[in-house]
């Protein structure tokens, strides 16, 4: 599904035989150019970021699932397209979705006629992942469990509630933020079946093409079942092409083709100057790829900081024309969006209609209003016709408004003298089958937009003065990394650490999952940070207050009973998380019962007690994934397995048991899991309602658990019990309040956007890194540290061009009743009472803090608050315009 | 002058008969009080009422009245041209109104029907209306109409005055309009002029005996406007006022109105609504400035207008007919009788 079409030069008749040429004729945008040939360009650049992505695993070679032969066995990527409204079935879930592959083939056509709405769909997990028998992909692809759950839920939404969805899996791996809840909801609320097994084989009923599967269930019984469709949850692979280019670039790969990195420089390849990000780094989902992206930018930028701003150009600003007091002269531009709108709506009629509307001086239809040439034409029209308000009827303002506003600015108009109405998403797309009504509605929408635009006023954006120093709260790995990057790129940075030394929880760790010694690297990082001239470290210091807004924060800090103030422009919250102190499994009643971090400490100091142990047990999910703490702590499976391997290596004869619920060694950590099993570590599964029981009988320590294979209780006598305890957030409500940032139910910070804004907050100028966001291992904490720095840098780089939005609330003091609703209700503290002047006591809005959400406007009973750009008279005129008939 | 005796047994029949020519209005009970309303088919005026909550002024001067209309539809030839709203001015008769309300109409007339300007809406309605009054045999304890130039059997403003004589009405026909109405009803039992007038006089004297409430207006005229305007009692009078418009809305003599344009779809109407000097909007300028910005200024304006400016301008006494409605309706019991007496007896302290 490329968003743009391209010509395949091997097949194109025009290029091969100089015939046809139809595409050039029919393309309304004149985008076809047969003369284009391959060009070689040499670019000199300071750094390279290599982000080649992945290819979905091709299951054709799997004979047991018969993907290549059975039409109703499809891949998850294919299913993703089926669910999509813009996909081949327009979101309709149906069998034989891929048919007819060839409309001329009779067999395909016949099969396509057999299409029906499926009643039962199965997902097979780990296709092309965690598998060395059928393919050579021993790693976990990290994302398939999540997308399978999502696809099952959406499929039910599309197909209706009685669709039976079953997911066949080995371990359900949902270790990301809010993922476990989604998984629980899939089970409880959406009724998705989760069946823990590996399906042996699939056969097809040759008549109906229904699919029969056979598997062994939890109780060892063989089960035969029939499904209408099977979705193969295919894993992520690094393509041969990527591997080849990597070799050319001279960067080291792991045995699976992923880039080899160090946990402490997780986006840096083995070759100097080449940084990597995304799945190429390790199988990962979108938010982690997004973090990688920013982290790689930070790493690449760090290396080039002295050359910053040498090659970038700045845009020339055009003097704004004063239109205040002028009669509105509206230009209306109707976009065809190719056939997207014009295919349904009679755009010509809409354009003609627009010309008849009050104040409309000019109306024009264009094929693609957003195209470069349409934009420059628009500038000409504005100047030529002396237009002072612009209405654009096209697609969604969410994506295109800034573009059009820039065009306004380029022609000297204030960018708020503009109104956009969506005749595509809200109209042509939804009224596809009713072109007449769609045209009518387009006219209505244009009329309303014109009515509003006529009352548009130029709005002023306030300049924000940015103090370019940064405060990083928390001196752990994430905080130090963030500070280091910001300092390297030239910004004065303060680290506020409440303990007496930098390093945070990392001091308690022994090794990373990749085997690096944590303490050596940590001490090196601390030294680097302490020696950096741009970083001021404040240990034993706490933040007592924070006032202000982006670019202008002010805090009181307290250090050893001394208070001092700090002014800064940017804050990074990297306050981390801590280990849960267990209240079960006899913890605290026997010194042999310890936590994962206790065991790390023993390794670190090479505790002699370790030599006396012959049996060790780990219990997983202590305090995690249970009703009172419903999230997965992400790191504990890998951590325990790593420690189990360490024990086995020290004493191969030692009996090591890991009692777990799902093993969640995502990505290449799966290799550790495999290694542990090879070394003889015994894994026993338990259910949350049947937790292992720990008893201390005299000198002996016993753990009773029901073996999931034998389905019988077993009792293990052990010399040491390690509890893999949850990671719990600090739930720092005070801090959250200072910066007006939200906490989720568990107490983790809520980022700006779960997918696209994982290292920043909705509050402008405040960024996020480390386990305060969600539990994470060393490399991920460092990645997020870098990512937060990169995000902060984009803001700091705009230092001189940072403006508020023009769409903000303002107060009419004569109408203000001083009741304070606005002050109370604003989440950003923008309204306040004037403390001096003629309107002392009345509310006023700080334009820099206001986000234009309109909460105060809607709440003001006295009608004193107005939202600029959406003033009441504008909305009224729109409503009245709606009531008029064409 | 002509007197007619109407047997109450014939009353309903006569009224019914008049409907051929007249639309009828009269007192009707609604919730806890009486209102002068249009009498629908088969509805009779409830002549046993004591007093109506609202006065009769709305028959000539409705609270909301369409005065001009136009269309904004440019397809119509006469779009945007204001035309007088179509109103029914066919003959109508209001039955059973109290004499003080009739007197009030005469006061209101001073405003709407002058040599300089005749308000067409009010004048046309006035022209079309016949007022059939009902003398008040037993005025209530808060009626002070005798000291305002009106009284329980005052004839001013009426076309017919009825006296309730238990089993019959004695009608005093005062004008041609009145005569026409009586004729339309078919009431033709002529009573003796002298006897009848004597009866009216007795009834009036009896009724006036009941009037215990009085105001003094004798010295109002001789005081200067500024003197009363600057009197110290206004703040105290105004303190409890909540600036609602109740007093002005129930008042039979308050005539102020506000004009509004309302547009619904393509139809535009210019309406006039009762206004009230109690509202801050009453004098608010387009600039936002308000010369009567405080409550005290507004309260003072109301009383000065009624009891001083009107008095001075028209020389027709005060702009109050003593019905007592404002006294009873005021949520905070501001009493025009007290205020009038305060103004009348106020002597500037040197």
């Amino acid at each position, binding site marked *: 599904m490329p968003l743009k079409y391209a010509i395949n030069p091997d097949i194109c008749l025009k290029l091969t035989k100089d015939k046809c040429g139809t595409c050039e004729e029919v393309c309304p945008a004149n985008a076809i150019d047969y003369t284009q040939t391959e060009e070689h360009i040499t670019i*000199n650049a300071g750094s390279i*970021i290599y982000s*080649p992505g992945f290819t979905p695993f091709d299951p054709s070679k799997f004979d047991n699932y018969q993907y290549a032969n059975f039409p109703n066995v499809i891949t998850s990527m294919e299913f993703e397209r089926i669910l999509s409204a813009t996909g081949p079935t327009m979101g309709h879930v149906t069998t034989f979705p891929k048919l007819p592959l060839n409309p001329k083939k009779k067999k395909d056509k016949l099969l396509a006629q057999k299409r029906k709405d499926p009643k039962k769909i199965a997902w097979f997990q780990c296709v092309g992942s965690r598998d060395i028998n059928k393919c050579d992909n021993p790693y976990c692809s990290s994302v398939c469990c999540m997308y399978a759950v999502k696809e099952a839920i959406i499929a039910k939404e599309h197909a209706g509630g009685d669709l039976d969805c079953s997911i066949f899996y080995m371990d359900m791996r949902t270790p990301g933020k809010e993922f476990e809840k989604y998984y629980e909801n899939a089970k409880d609320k959406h009724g998705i079946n989760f069946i823990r097994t590996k399906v042996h084989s699939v056969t097809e009923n040759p008549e109906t093409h229904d699919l029969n599967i056979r598997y062994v269930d939890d109780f060892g019984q063989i089960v035969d079942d029939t499904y209408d469709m099977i979705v193969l949850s295919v894993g992520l692979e690094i393509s041969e092409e990527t591997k080849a280019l990597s070799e050319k670039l001279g960067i080291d790969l792991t045995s699976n083709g992923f880039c080899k990195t160090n946990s402490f420089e997780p986006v840096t390849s083995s070759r100097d100057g080449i940084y990597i990000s995304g799945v190429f780094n390790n199988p990962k989902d979108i938010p982690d790829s997004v973090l990688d992206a920013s982290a790689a930018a930070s790493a690449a930028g760090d290396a080039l900081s002295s050359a910053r701003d040498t090659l970038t150009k700045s845009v020339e600003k055009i003097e704004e024309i004063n239109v205040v007091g002028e009669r509105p002269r509206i230009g209306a531009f109707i976009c065809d969006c190719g056939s997207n709108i014009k295919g349904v709506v009679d755009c010509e009629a809409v354009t003609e209609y627009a010309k008849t509307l009050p104040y409309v001086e000019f109306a024009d239809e264009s094929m693609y209003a957003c195209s470069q040439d349409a934009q420059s034409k628009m500038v000409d029209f504005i100047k030529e016709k002396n237009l002072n308000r612009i209405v654009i009827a096209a697609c969604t303002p969410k994506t295109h408004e800034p573009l059009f506003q820039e065009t306004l600015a380029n022609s000297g108009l204030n960018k708020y003298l503009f109104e956009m109405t969506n005749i595509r998403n809200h109209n042509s797309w939804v009224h596809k089958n009713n072109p007449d009504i769609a045209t009518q509605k387009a006219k209505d929408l244009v009329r309303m937009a014109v009515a509003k635009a006529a009352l548009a006023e130029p709005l002023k954006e306030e300049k924000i003065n940015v103090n370019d120093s940064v405060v990083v709260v928390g001196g752990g790995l994430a905080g130090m990394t963030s500070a280091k990057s910001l300092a390297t790129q030239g910004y004065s940075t303060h680290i506020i650490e409440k303990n007496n030394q930098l390093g945070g929880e990392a001091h308690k760790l022994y090794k990373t999952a990749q085997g690096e010694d944590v303490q050596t690297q940590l001490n090196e990082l601390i030294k680097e940070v302490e020696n950096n001239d741009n970083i001021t470290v404040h240990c034993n210091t706490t933040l007592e207050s924070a006032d202000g807004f982006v670019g202008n924060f002010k805090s009181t800090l307290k250090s050893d009973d001394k208070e001092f103030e700090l002014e800064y422009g940017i804050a990074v919250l990297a306050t981390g998380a801590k280990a849960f102190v267990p209240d079960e499994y006899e913890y605290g009643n026997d010194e042999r019962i310890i936590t994962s971090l206790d065991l790390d400490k023993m390794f670190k100091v090479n505790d002699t007690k370790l030599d006396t142990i012959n049996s060790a047990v780990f219990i997983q999910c202590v305090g995690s994934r249970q009703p009172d703490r419903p999230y997965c702590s992400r790191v504990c499976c890998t951590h325990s397995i790593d420690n189990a391997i360490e024990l086995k290596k020290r004493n191969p004869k030692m009996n090591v048991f890991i009692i777990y619920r799902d093993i969640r060694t995502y990505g290449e950590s799966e290799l550790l899991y495999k290694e542990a099993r090879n070394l003889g570590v015994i894994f026993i599964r338990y259910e949350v309602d049947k937790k292992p029981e720990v008893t201390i009988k005299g000198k002996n320590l016993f753990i009773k658990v029901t073996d999931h294979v034998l389905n019988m209780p077993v009792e293990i006598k052990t010399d040491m019990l390690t509890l893999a305890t949850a990671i719990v957030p600090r739930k720092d409500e005070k801090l959250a309040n200072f910066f007006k940032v939200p906490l989720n139910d568990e107490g983790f910070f809520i980022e700006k956007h779960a997918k696209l804004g994982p290292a920043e907050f909705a509050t402008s100028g405040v960024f996020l890194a480390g386990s305060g966001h969600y539990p994470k291992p060393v490399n991920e904490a460092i990645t997020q540290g870098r990512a937060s720095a990169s995000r902060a840098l*984009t803001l700091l780089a705009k230092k001189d061009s940072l403006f508020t939005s023009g769409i903000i609330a303002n107060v009419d003091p004569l109408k203000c009743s001083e009741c304070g609703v606005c002050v109370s209700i604003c989440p950003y503290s923008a309204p306040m009472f004037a403390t001096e002047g003629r309107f002392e006591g009345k509310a006023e809005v700080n334009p820099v803090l206001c986000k234009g959400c309109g909460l105060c406007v809607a709440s003001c009973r006295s009608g004193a608050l107005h939202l600029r750009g959406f003033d009441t008279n504008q909305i009224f005129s729109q409503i009245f315009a709606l009531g008029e008939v064409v | 002058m002509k007197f007619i005796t109407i047997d109450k047994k014939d009353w309903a029949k006569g009224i019914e008969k008049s409907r051929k020519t007249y639309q009828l209005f009269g007192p009707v009970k609604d919730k806890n009080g009486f209102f002068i309303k249009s009498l629908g088919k088969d509805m009779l005026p409830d002549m046993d009422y004591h007093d109506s909550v609202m006065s009769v002024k709305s028959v000539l001067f409705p609270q909301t009245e369409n005065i001009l209309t136009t269309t904004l539809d440019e397809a119509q030839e006469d779009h945007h041209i204001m035309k007088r709203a179509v109103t029914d001015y066919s003959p109508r008769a209001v039955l059973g109104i109290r004499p003080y309300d009739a007197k009030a109409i005469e006061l209101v007339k001073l405003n709407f029907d002058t040599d300089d300007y005749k308000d067409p809406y009010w004048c046309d309605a006035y022209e079309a209306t016949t007022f059939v009054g009902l003398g008040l045999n037993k005025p209530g304890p808060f009626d002070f109409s005798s000291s305002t130039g009106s009284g329980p059997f005052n004839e001013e403003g009426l076309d017919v005055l009825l006296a309730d004589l238990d089993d019959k009405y004695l009608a005093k026909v005062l004008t041609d309009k009145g005569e026409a109405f009586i004729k339309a009803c078919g009431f033709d039992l002529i009573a003796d002029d002298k006897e009848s007038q004597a009866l009216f006089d007795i009834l009036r004297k009896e009724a006036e005996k009941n009037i215990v409430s009085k105001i003094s207006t004798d010295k109002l005229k001789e005081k200067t406007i500024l003197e009363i305007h600057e009197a110290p009692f206004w703040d105290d009078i105004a303190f409890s006022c909540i600036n609602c418009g109740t007093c002005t809305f129930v008042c039979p003599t308050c005539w102020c109105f506000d004009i509004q344009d309302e547009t619904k779809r393509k139809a535009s109407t210019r309406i006039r609504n009762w206004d009230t000097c109690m509202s801050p909007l009453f004098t608010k300028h387009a600039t936002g400035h308000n010369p009567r910005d405080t409550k005290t200024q507004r309260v003072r304006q109301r009383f000065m207008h009624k009891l001083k400016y009107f008095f001075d301008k028209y020389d027709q006494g005060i702009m109050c007919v003593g019905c007592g409605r404002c006294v009873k309706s005021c949520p905070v019991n501001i009493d025009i009788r007290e205020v009038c007496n305060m103004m009348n007896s106020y002597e500037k302290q040197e």
Partner: protein
Amino acid sequence: MNKQLIGSVVVIGGGISGMLSALDLANSGYYVYLVEKGPSIGGVMAQLDKTFPTNDCAM
């Protein structure tokens, strides 16, 4: 040593990760070349319907 650094970066791959790297760098003062072998940028994410766990539209 002390070779003059070049203030530009080549980003190879126009998927979500490559695009965001490019944006961050461009917005913080570096010239960026974004190289993509396909005819459009967007990568695999552009092919997804909704995203986990918020069910936001991937487009």
